[in-house]
């Protein structure tokens, strides 16, 4: 039975359970609400949740785990075949899927010409289907059909059993509301734990693949190698240093643009601007923050790059070879970060107590002296936190550097040269590649790990500083 129908059936059983539970509770109390512990609906929900929670957990677990069990059971059939077992199994799965779509009796299908027929129903198989693959695929189909039936029976049994069990428990004295509320609280906790699960997922995905990478490529060469030249034919040199350099260089230029501009506009907006100017200019500036980074990437590639080329290129100063360069990406990234820096600094400057300003102004300082000598020093830790957050943003930014910085990994000081970053290389190593066993693809996970650790450290430090700073004046 398709999963969707099974799901709907479970919902139906739960709805029936609700109605029956409600009625049973009312009947037990002789229709007298005051003789019941909870409102009638709570009894109904009690039954419904007893049905839904275990059967949906079962459904999810089975669907998630069944493919692995099936793989395990079918894999021995392919044991004698040439080639990587994971690739063979993905072929088997694809053929199995195709056989289902063909809708013929599996035992009568011939391996010959099967590839073309599969292609007709929209299943692309990498190579001609061998007899062993076909046999394994047929076995896979049989097993997966069996698994589907087992799941249906099991889930329905659980749903009906739970409904019967919880209906039998219903008496007017049952503390139904408390039970339902406990269950809901459990669900709420589970939702909150998704955040932790995401982090665990990120860490596991990165670590497991990083370990696999270091098994095929020495870690010391990765961390201290000064050459980045992947070649899918083998013999790649995968040193991270040029990428780290490119990332830091571009981020530094971005911060050089964003921090002064962002900070000064925040100062102007919070200390000088009239209410009307502030009401207009602040949202306008924040529009810059709402624009997706792909737009900035295109802006860098097609507008800023060619414009810089006019000034610094062969026609002008002759320093620049192509439109994609460190300066292009850095400049555009800086523009993107202006509102980020300015709105964070704005909050921080506003948190400086007014009494400190009044004291300084009262002693005869001009507003700018007050800002430079009282407000900014007091806000400094918070601003440092904001700059660190902006740096973490800059390091993790992808689309601008993919489109604007070029693709060449090099260690150079010239900002007019094309360089590349960690994020850009993660994209280029993983795009359009299905084989995750070569060091050239696995290296992307190690790059991701490096990126994750660096930005995480920056974020933790920055959030800690900002939080401590806020507490200081609260």
């Amino acid at each position, binding site marked *: 039975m398709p999963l969707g129908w099974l799901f709907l059936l479970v919902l139906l059983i739960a709805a029936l359970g609700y109605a029956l539970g409600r009625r049973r509770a009312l009947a037990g109390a002789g229709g007298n609400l005051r003789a019941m512990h909870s409102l009638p609906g709570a009894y109904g929900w009690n039954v419904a949740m007893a049905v839904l929670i275990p059967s949906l957990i079962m459904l999810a677990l089975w669907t998630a785990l069944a493919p692995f069990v099936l793989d395990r059971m079918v894999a021995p059939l392919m044991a004698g075949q040439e080639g990587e077992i994971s690739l063979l199994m993905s072929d088997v799965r694809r053929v199995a899927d195709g056989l289902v779509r063909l809708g013929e009796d599996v035992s009568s299908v011939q391996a010959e010409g099967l590839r073309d027929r599969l292609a007709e129903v929209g299943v692309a198989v990498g190579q001609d289907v061998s007899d062993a693959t076909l046999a394994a695929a047929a076995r896979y189909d049989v097993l997966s059909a069996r698994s589907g039936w087992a799941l249906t029976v099991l889930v329905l049994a659980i749903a009906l059993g739970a409904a019967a069990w919880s209906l039998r428990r219903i008496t007017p004295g049952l503390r139904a509301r408390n039970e339902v509320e406990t269950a809901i609280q459990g669900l709420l906790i589970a939702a909150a734990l998704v955040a932790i699960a995401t982090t665990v997922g990120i860490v596991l995905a990165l670590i497991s693949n990083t370990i696999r990478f270091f098994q095929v490529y020495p870690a010391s060469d990765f961390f201290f190698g000064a050459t980045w030249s992947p070649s899918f034919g083998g013999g790649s040199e995968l040193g991270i240093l040029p990428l780290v350099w490119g990332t830091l260089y571009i981020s530094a230029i971005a911060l050089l643009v964003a921090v002064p501009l962002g900070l000064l506009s925040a100062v102007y907006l919070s200390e000088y601007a009239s209410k009307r100017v502030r009401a207009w200019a602040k949202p306008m500036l924040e529009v810059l923050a*709402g624009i997706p980074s792909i737009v900035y990437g295109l802006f860098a590639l097609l507008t800023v790059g060619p414009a810089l080329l006019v000034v610094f290129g062969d026609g002008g100063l002759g320093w620049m070879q192509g439109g994609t360069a460190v300066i292009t990406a850095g400049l555009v990234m800086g523009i993107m970060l202006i509102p980020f820096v300015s709105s964070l600094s704005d909050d921080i400057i506003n948190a400086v107590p007014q009494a400190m300003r009044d004291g300084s102004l009262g002693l005869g300082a001009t507003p700018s002296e007050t800002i430079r000598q009282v407000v900014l020093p007091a806000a400094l830790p918070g601003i440092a936190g904001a700059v660190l957050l902006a740096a973490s943003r800059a390091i993790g930014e992808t689309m601008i550097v993919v489109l604007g910085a070029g693709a060449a990994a090099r260690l150079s000081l010239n900002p007019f040269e094309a360089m590349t970053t960690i994020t850009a290389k993660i994209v280029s190593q993983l795009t359009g590649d299905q084989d995750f066993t070569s060091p050239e693809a696995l290296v992307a996970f190690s790059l991701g790990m490096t990126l994750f650790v660096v930005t995480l450290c920056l974020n933790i430090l920055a959030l800690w500083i900002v939080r401590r700073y806020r507490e200081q004046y609260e």
Partner: protein
Amino acid sequence: MTDLPAAGAIPVTPSPSRSILETDARTRARNRAEARFRAYGLGALLVGLIFLVLLLGSILWNGMGAFTQTQVTLPIELLESELDPEGTRDPAVIGEVSTFGYNDLIEASLARVVADAGVQTELDAGDLTDILSSGAAAQLREAVLADPSLVGQTVTFDLLAASRVDGYVKGRVTRESLADDRNLSPVHLDVVDQLRDAGFVSRGLNLDFITGADASEKRPEEAGIGVAMIGSFYMMLVVLGLSLPLGVAASIYLEEFAPKNRLTDLIEVNIANLAAVPSIVYGILGLAVFIQFAHLPQSAPLVGGLVLTLLTLPTIIIATRASLKAVPPSIRDAALGVGASKMQAVFHHVLPLAVPGIMTGTIIGMAHALGETAPLLLIGMVGFVASNYPGGVVEGFTSPNSAMPAQIYEWAKRADPAFYERAWGGIIVLLVFLLLMNLAAVLVRRRFERRW
């Protein structure tokens, strides 16, 4: 701040002026510094706003062209002898004629039009068709298959012009830029000029760009963003369906029920950090967990939606918690006071009052997800994938598709100015959606938000 400067560092101040009517040099210097500082601030703000204007101007200037397209209007004689020699008018029989057959018809018609208009050219009929899109024959074939009764008549069609011709009409392509172009020569442009004067070449609204599918690298004039838009739509359905309930549930727990303990602290720190993890890392997570591990289909909007759900969850949780916090405690106390349980107080009283804030946060989170590109590249939603409309709702979630920002990236990569124009046009479409979503968020806030 209270540190006294070292004795030697005390500047020797000139004696203040005797009159209060006349400012002394030092005061003037301080006032100048004040004005300068103020000017720096204003300057920084203006630079930021100028960048905004430049960015938006550059988008509009480069992108509006994508919404019009050059067409060549040709009366085409759909010869029965070529298309349907037996006169059956059966679509199956007519369908056997490939696009090559139609090419001949177009060639003949174009040659006739050129001759009738008195165009002087040394190009022969075969070369002349270069001014038309290579998809023109397919366009014609589709029209005939849709309505077989057209066979035998002379019908006027608006055929797409080639991308270079389109670029010339829009002013992007010049005779100089065609000097060593293999697709079109400057001589063709002379023909285009004369046909334009004769009214056969015109520029019309390009609805196909908004509704159409991506086209292969040779035919930028046919590429549209419609299919990618559908991909984005299905992704947003997944994001909305998962991140709203999960985010609201998590926020309710953290804000209303969570005891102060280490687990709660851990979750809170975790969420704050997840909000700042680079989006590409979520792409790696999606690749490793959903594709490598769980074998979900590559390039599917379902997977994209799952990744973007994880990405927007922290944003939604932060916004929801803020709006739950904004509901005054007196509401809770009143509910508890008349005998509601904690759960009833939250679900019957606090949550409904927080709904506007939650909606605003959700819309903004979704707008953020809609523009996100980097994670989609890793799960394969890029490349020539948005070429067909999904067959149905289930297929919409599972069959390979692109998304608007990924499609824009794809076009930007194709290194053909005609595709660049599409990319800018795609950005306009994307920004219109983002603008509408943000407007909706502002309206919801204005209309429903209550301040206590």
